[in-house]
């Protein structure tokens, strides 16, 4: 399945924040969105999720124009892993993951056996089955993130939008999340995630997208990310080098201080 935005103009009411957005993502690939704080990544994500309608332009799913779909229909193809999640009440992990089934359950309905099976599968896929009866609010940040990703899996959408999945996680948990993202890619899900570290894009062999001064720059393969580009976006000097030891071979970023 292919998700495509053509000539998108994004913003609130009449205020344009991003113009000329042309992106394309396939299931089974990762798109890393980078850019400085306040460049418009949040607006970009809200538009992807259908929360914020495009000012102009079209959204296609394969070759079907879905620009006019309502938010409910959007949520059956794109799920969302927000950056921060706070529940005003404490739910168990299983209950949180079950919420991912909402779009498939009618207004006065409640989860069926099948929904529970799907939620259980999602927990097992994320390898957090042992947490299922724990209270969500008592988990660590890394565990919470895993649970929210499991919820997105239970939604059974083809694409997952992750808003800075690694933010405020310790180093180990960041790597674990990136690993999980790669596993999801192998399960032929399309993942669109924002990150502040170009290294994450290198680790995922992702496609890169840079949001900068009201524009979305499509870089394509992250191998095309250059030192001069990073300098332009982040305003600091960054060297890109090839790291190679036994079978670990990939590009790395080295900021010069």
């Amino acid at each position: 399945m292919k998700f495509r935005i053509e000539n998108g103009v994004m913003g609130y009411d009449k205020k344009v924040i991003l113009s000329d957005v042309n992106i394309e993502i396939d299931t089974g690939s990762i798109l890393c969105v980078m850019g400085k704080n306040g460049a418009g990544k949040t607006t970009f994500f809200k538009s992807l999720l259908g929360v914020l309608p495009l000012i102009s332009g079209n959204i296609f799913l394969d070759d079907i124009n879905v620009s006019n779909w309502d938010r409910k229909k959007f949520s059956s193809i794109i799920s969302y892993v927000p950056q921060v999640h706070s529940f005003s009440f404490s739910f168990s992990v299983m209950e949180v993951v079950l919420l991912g089934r909402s779009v498939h359950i009618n207004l006065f309905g409640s989860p069926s056996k099948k929904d529970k099976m799907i939620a259980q599968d999602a927990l097992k896929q994320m390898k957090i089955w042992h947490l299922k009866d724990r209270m969500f609010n008592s988990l660590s940040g890394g565990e919470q993130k895993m649970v929210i990703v499991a919820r997105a899996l239970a939604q059974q959408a083809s694409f997952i939008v992750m808003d800075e999945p690694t933010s405020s996680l310790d180093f180990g948990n960041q790597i674990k999340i990136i690993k999980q993202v790669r596993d999801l890619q192998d399960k032929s899900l399309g993942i669109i995630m924002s990150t502040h570290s170009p290294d994450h894009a290198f680790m995922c062999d992702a496609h890169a997208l840079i949001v900068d001064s009201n524009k979305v720059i499509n870089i394509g393969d992250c191998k095309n990310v250059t030192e001069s580009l990073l300098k332009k976006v982040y305003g600091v000097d960054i060297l890109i080098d090839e790291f190679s030891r036994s079978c670990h071979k990939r590009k790395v970023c080295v900021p010069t201080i």
Partner: protein
Amino acid sequence: MKVMDLIYKRKVISQTLSGSYVLICYIGIIGILLLSIIFSLCLGRYNVTPSEIISTLFSGEESPFISTILFNIRLPRIMMAILAGGVLTLSGCSYQAVFRNPMVSPDILGVSSGAACGAAIAILMSMSSLGIQLMSFLFGLLAVSATFLVSRVLKRVNDQILMLILAGIVISSLFGSMISLFKYIADPDSKLPAITFWMMGSFNSVTMENLKGVLPVVLCGTIPLILISWKLNVLSLNEDEAYSLGINPNTIRIITIFCSTLITASIVSLTGLIGWVGLIIPHFCRFLIGSDNRILMPFSFLTGSVFLLWIDNISRTVSTLEIPIGIITAIIGSPLFLFFLSKRRKDF
């Protein structure tokens, strides 16, 4: 209090909630409710033993005296206490889910002050008890509708929930001052005591007919609330997250507020104002059984029933003069509430 401490400790240590624990809680509360009903039937000025109740209920040999006491006096009252406790707690739970705040009580949008105002007008106009009931019901709904309208007019601020609460405060105090006005002009020998007594809440005058009249309305509100309870969990998330899960939070909010207002108004119109129940019982139940509304709401209903049944037992037996329900719920409720607050945890 010792028992509660143990419950808290258990939950803090394990921080888990398993299915069998939930089942035990349910069996426990149903058992307590049944025992409380039997005990309450025995309780009163005239002593009836449990064996007499059983023989009156199941075998033909009944003394007309005992059956009159049981079926015409005690049973309607007990059933009303159960229904009122359950309904007020359920609507408290729903309101708390809608407003994402465990400290919200069902009268936050003005249903109680509206109902009280309606009752005051009806008493002032010397209406029948049915008239009082209808007037307070209608005014309860009117007040909440007014709150809704005001919050819509003040739409300029983004936060819809905050606007609702602020509008609720304004409407409540408006109706409150109207009540004061009616009290001021009411005949101090007959009408004023009636208004005052109504506002303190009582099951004194409840009959089987009242119950039959209010039951359909209560069911119309309660059944959708129980059915929608799972979707209420989604309201605990922020707007964007709810939408991305395919849920329109506003639809759920409006249905829930409508149903809870309907049932609260119908109960309050019969019993007068009964505070605290809708605030502390959901609170207590959430400690005990977690926040999943699908499990929490029926459980709260049962717990609220037990609570108000015992409050009523105290009300009618502790002295020769019946103590109004609303006063006892406040006397017992406020220290309990403080106790719960002091036990409040991070993950709650």
